[in-house]
């Protein structure tokens, strides 16, 4: 049973995706399948995190090929909480898109792709094998390509070209890094790599970890290599962009955190000063980019970049508190960002535009929506007691403790600028009267309103809950951070106590095979 539990978060979405693909002629049937799949996934995710909390780390070796030889799935606290958040976002998006994309011709195939994407994301969180991580990245990538061009209008095709090209470069570099790492160590298992990487010559380690850093930085849209994100995200349908904003870049950050704690030690790899600079500049460019935009989706897209900076900042400082902050920030950000995009999408559906100049009067027309907007907006900017405040507080405190004053000042300034952007959306879309030439808002049926508002409200409630019940989430993040910085228990659990790896025939013979 436990053996199966780890596979379920990938198996269920893949099964759902297949079922949706077969029922693409019947819209309502594919909606029902999609809902069922999303709910089943949430239940499994809850079961998984419960098991991990009560029984500790879970390992499944495929075909009983023991690590480090076979592929293993590992669910520690970090990956199982990421799986849970992914499942929550999955349900929210599936519900929302039932209303938002129903009229579109690609509706049924959309459900199929979105579940396959979720499978890729879940797999990236759960796998303990670095080549398997590559495979799940590819699953995620190819489905995200597919979702990107579903609408197939000029702008989307153009956006997709940029998205595809830059992500392919990242993929190639990632693959090269894995190949070289295997050539240097003879293993692909992350737990096994920990000890073997430490024995590598410094230059080799620096080269390989540099390639990983570059590859994942593109995925995470970090400072010099973020341009694919603001070039492509704003042409996606709202439900899809919310899913991308919540999950895709965060998988990149997750991979960075995983690889630079368990496989490489960030301090030993020599990239810590660079990553600190990258983190600061990522925050700054993101928020400055957002300040010049007048389209809700574009503002929010640039804010993804600036928020990624905070997470990278947590990793770059590399103290337990900082990593705790980074993990807390990821959890908070996934919920809040998805929510803001969903609200932007709802406004677009009502007014037919997400350009701030053509919007207005939403406060008087929908005061409850204004309230629902304020919660994630304030949380994003970091108002206490909402979730964003605690995330920012943790990483900034960690930066002050390590005397990175410039970085702390940047983080605070970026928080201030985030308020500016959120106020801009508030003032333009909600507060000012509707422009004279704007069309009258679309009236939606009661059912459609429900489908739009339920996920938005649910995510807002989760934001508030995280804000008021910081302690359990903080402890979860702290334990995860401790496990990452002191990975011995993880390694023992994966490799089965006294490490088999040193007597392994493959490594004993050396992959050069010449030493005997």
């Amino acid at each position, binding site marked *: 049973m436990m053996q199966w539990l780890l596979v379920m978060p990938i198996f269920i979405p893949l099964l759902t995706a297949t079922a949706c693909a077969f029922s693409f002629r019947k819209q309502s049937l594919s909606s029902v399948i999609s809902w069922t799949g999303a709910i089943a996934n949430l239940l499994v995710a809850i079961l998984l995190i419960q098991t991990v909390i009560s029984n500790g780390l879970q390992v499944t070796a495929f075909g009983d090929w023991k690590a480090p030889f076979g592929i293993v799935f590992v669910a520690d606290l970090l990956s199982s909480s990421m799986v849970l958040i992914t499942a929550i976002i999955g349900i929210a998006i599936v519900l929302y898109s039932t209303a938002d994309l129903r009229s579109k011709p690609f509706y049924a195939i959309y459900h199929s792709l979105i579940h396959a994407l979720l499978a890729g994301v879940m797999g990236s969180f759960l796998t303990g094998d670095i080549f398997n991580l590559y495979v799940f990245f*590819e699953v995620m990538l190819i489905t995200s*390509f597919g979702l990107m061009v579903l609408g197939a209008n000029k702008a989307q095709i153009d956006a997709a070209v940029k998205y595809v090209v830059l992500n392919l470069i990242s993929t190639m570099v990632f*693959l090269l890094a894995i190949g*070289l790492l295997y050539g240097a160590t003879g293993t692909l298992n992350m737990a096994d790599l920990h000890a073997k990487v430490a024995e590598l010559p410094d230059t080799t380690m620096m080269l390989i970890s540099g390639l990983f850093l570059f590859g994942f930085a593109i995925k995470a849209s970090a400072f010099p290599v973020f341009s694919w994100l603001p070039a492509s995200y704003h042409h996606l349908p709202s439900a899809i962009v919310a899913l991308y904003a919540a999950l895709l870049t965060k998988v990149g950050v997750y991979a960075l955190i995983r690889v630079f704690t368990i496989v490489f030690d960030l301090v030993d790899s020599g990239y810590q000063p660079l990553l600190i600079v990258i983190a600061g500049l990522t925050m700054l460019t993101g928020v400055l980019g957002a300040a010049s935009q007048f389209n809700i989706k574009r503002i929010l897209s640039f804010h993804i970049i600036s928020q990624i900076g905070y997470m990278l900042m947590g990793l770059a400082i590399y103290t337990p508190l900082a990593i705790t902050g980074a993990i807390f920030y990821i959890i908070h950000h996934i919920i809040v960002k998805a929510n803001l995009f969903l609200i932007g999408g709802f406004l677009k559906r009502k007014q037919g535009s997400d350009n701030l100049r053509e919007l207005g009067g939403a406060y008087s027309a929908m005061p409850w929506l204004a309230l629902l907007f304020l919660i994630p907006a304030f949380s994003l900017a970091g108002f206490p007691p909402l979730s964003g405040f605690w995330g920012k507080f943790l990483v900034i405190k960690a930066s002050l403790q390590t005397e990175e004053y410039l970085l702390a000042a940047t983080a605070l300034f970026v928080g201030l600028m985030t308020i500016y952007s959120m106020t801009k959306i508030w003032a333009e879309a909600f507060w000012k009267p509707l422009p004279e030439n704007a069309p009258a808002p679309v009236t939606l049926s009661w059912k459609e309103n429900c489908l739009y508002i339920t996920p938005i409200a649910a995510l807002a409630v989760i934001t508030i809950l995280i804000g008021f019940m910081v302690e359990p989430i903080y402890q979860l993040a702290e334990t995860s951070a401790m496990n990452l910085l002191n990975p011995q228990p993880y390694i023992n659990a994966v490799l089965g106590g006294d490490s088999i790896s040193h007597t392994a025939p493959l490594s004993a013979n050396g992959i050069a095979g010449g030493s005997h």
Partner: protein
Amino acid sequence: MEFLWCLVVGLMTACGVFLMLERHIVRFLFGMILVSNAINLAIFVAGRLTRGNPPLIASDALLPAAGYANPLPQALILTAIVIGFGLLLFTLLLAYRAIKELGTADMDKMQHAETEQ
């Protein structure tokens, strides 16, 4: 032997990167194909090259004879080729569609996503 292959990989990467710096989307794709094949070769070489020593275990031994060829990089490359093939197919179709829809193959002129509507 490995040194020679390293040169080949380096040469392929150099050509690939040169093509990828072009503005024409099809040339870019050719460059991408070259680089991704160069990477596959790099994985192959990183697994070290041995001749005439298949990783087979003799019936009376527990381990294969020393100096055997490591089969894992081949498996990795095979996976990477399959994935790369799928991605390439998608990208080629996308490029074809982009040229038809946008009326240009020059990536500098592909500005439809950037303009404010």
